């Protein structure tokens, strides 16, 4: 009888996959850029290479992957309907890809024309995406803290892109704006208000589900998002309030709630009854340990200004946040989402359950853990390279190789999906 069950109109599998298949290659490009740029690339956060690398990872890898995941996550986790997902994805994804390339090239080569050209494309791509996702998130009858975190995150994305656009135009045309403060507010919303908010909200749902932990304590999920939002608003007040004491006063509690999220997640993993050590669990552990390292380093940065005066200190923080936390968590998530989507969409073909191959057959476990080890090596090499510039080229090579491996693992999963799909259709 199962063969007659009909499945809901979740978006076609091509919608998330067109984002997922592109994302790793931006990461690989970041690695190659490091190899090409060599020793000077990470001398300070303001080198053209550092700014370009930041956005290859933040927009090319993270945003692509997170947009793709949201199209799928919204119907599956919070029961929302995204308006015409195929049309939206087919428009947003290429626009985003092009805009990212233009921005990165503009930052790297210092070309105002490229920066200005990227801005309308971002506004169009992300404006469209934010509108469609916001409608879905506000219309769903579902409740819960995952939903609220996603709503706040999508607002955070809008703020990030508006501030980023302002910065890009300011650099292109030399507007008199406080660039450093604006950049700090922009990165707060990008990394905190968008990326971390989304990661936390999604964690409430997927960590218990896929990693078989107990749920996050409700006092935690109820307060984390709001506190994060409050601290980000306070952090933004630096644009108006010019007080050197203000930054640490906001930064300490902010770093504290980061540690609380990372600590809670590690504790849930540690206390679960059934221990599984698959690539996703390990990737989450790497991400949460990186977040703790980030919080400790951030505290040192404010406590010991003489150390923080070295421009490489902030680069170290950036490597921890972008590559240590977000690349790890997102990769771990993709290693669950992709096999799960393969399985779900094969089910939708109407085959009997026994005919649909197990999720574990979609990406070989060895390929995932091998790629994970290479990624961890790349993170450690990058962190060392911040202080030992001679290591930048090998670290870049390791980073590129780990992203290429990820790209191949994901492409292999898609090929396997197509193979199984053809088998099921032939048998029907």
């Amino acid at each position: 009888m199962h063969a007659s069950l009909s499945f809901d109109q979740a978006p076609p599998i091509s919608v998330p996959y067109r984002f997922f298949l592109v994302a790793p290659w931006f990461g690989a490009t970041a690695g190659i850029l490091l190899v090409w740029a060599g020793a000077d690339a990470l001398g300070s956060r303001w080198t053209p290479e550092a700014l370009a690398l930041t956005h290859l990872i933040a927009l090319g890898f993270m945003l692509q992957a997170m947009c793709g995941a949201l199209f799928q996550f919204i119907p599956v986790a919070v029961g929302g309907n995204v308006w015409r997902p195929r049309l939206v994805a087919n428009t947003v994804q290429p626009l985003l890809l092009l805009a990212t390339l233009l921005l990165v090239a503009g930052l790297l080569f210092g070309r105002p024309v490229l920066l200005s050209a990227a801005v309308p494309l971002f506004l169009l791509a992300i404006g469209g995406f934010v509108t469609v996702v916001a409608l879905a998130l506000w219309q769903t009858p579902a409740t819960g803290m995952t939903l609220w975190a996603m709503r706040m995150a999508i607002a955070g994305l809008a703020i990030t892109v508006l501030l980023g656009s302002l910065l890009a135009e300011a650099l292109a045309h030399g507007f008199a704006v406080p660039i450093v403060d604006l950049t700090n507010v922009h990165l707060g919303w990008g990394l905190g208000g968008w990326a971390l908010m989304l990661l936390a909200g999604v964690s409430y749902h997927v960590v218990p589900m896929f990693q078989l932990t107990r749920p996050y304590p409700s006092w935690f999920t109820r307060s984390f998002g709001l506190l994060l939002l409050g601290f980000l608003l306070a952090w933004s007040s630096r644009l108006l309030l010019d007080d050197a004491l203000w930054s640490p006063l906001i930064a300490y509690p902010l770093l504290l709630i980061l540690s609380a999220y990372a600590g809670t997640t590690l504790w849930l993993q540690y206390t679960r009854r059934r221990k599984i050590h698959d690539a996703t669990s390990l990737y989450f552990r790497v991400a949460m340990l990186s977040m703790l390292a980030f919080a400790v380093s951030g505290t040192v940065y404010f406590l010991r200004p003489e150390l923080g005066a070295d421009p490489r200190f902030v680069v170290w923080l950036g490597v921890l946040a972008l590559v240590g936390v977000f690349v790890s968590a997102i990769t771990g998530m993709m290693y669950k989402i992709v096999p799960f989507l393969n399985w779900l969409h094969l089910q939708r073909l109407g085959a009997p359950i026994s005919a649909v191959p197990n999720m574990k057959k979609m990406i070989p476990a060895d390929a995932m853990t091998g790629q994970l080890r290479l990624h961890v090596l790349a993170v450690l090499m990058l962190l060392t390279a911040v202080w030992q510039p001679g290591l930048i080229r090998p670290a870049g090579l390791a980073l590129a190789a780990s992203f290429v491996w990820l790209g191949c693992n994901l492409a292999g999963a898609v090929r396997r999906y197509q193979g199984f799909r053809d088998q099921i259709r032939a048998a029907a």
Partner: protein
Amino acid sequence: MTTTVIDGRELQPPEPMERTLEALDTLAEGDDVLLLLYCQPHPLFSILKKNGYAWGEEVRADGTREIRIHKLPG
């Protein structure tokens, strides 16, 4: 009336859904399936809705959701 209990709390997805769909295959009129989970299985709900099943949900103090499924008459 018999109840088939599926404790999905320590199973990795998609096992809880697989087992539930299998149990529904053999569900007799008047019987029900009780699924225990820590999250709301929206993909399962949409399958149930489309195929003439009804369900009720209760949340226990520890966060466990009890999802009780039965076939609608007709």
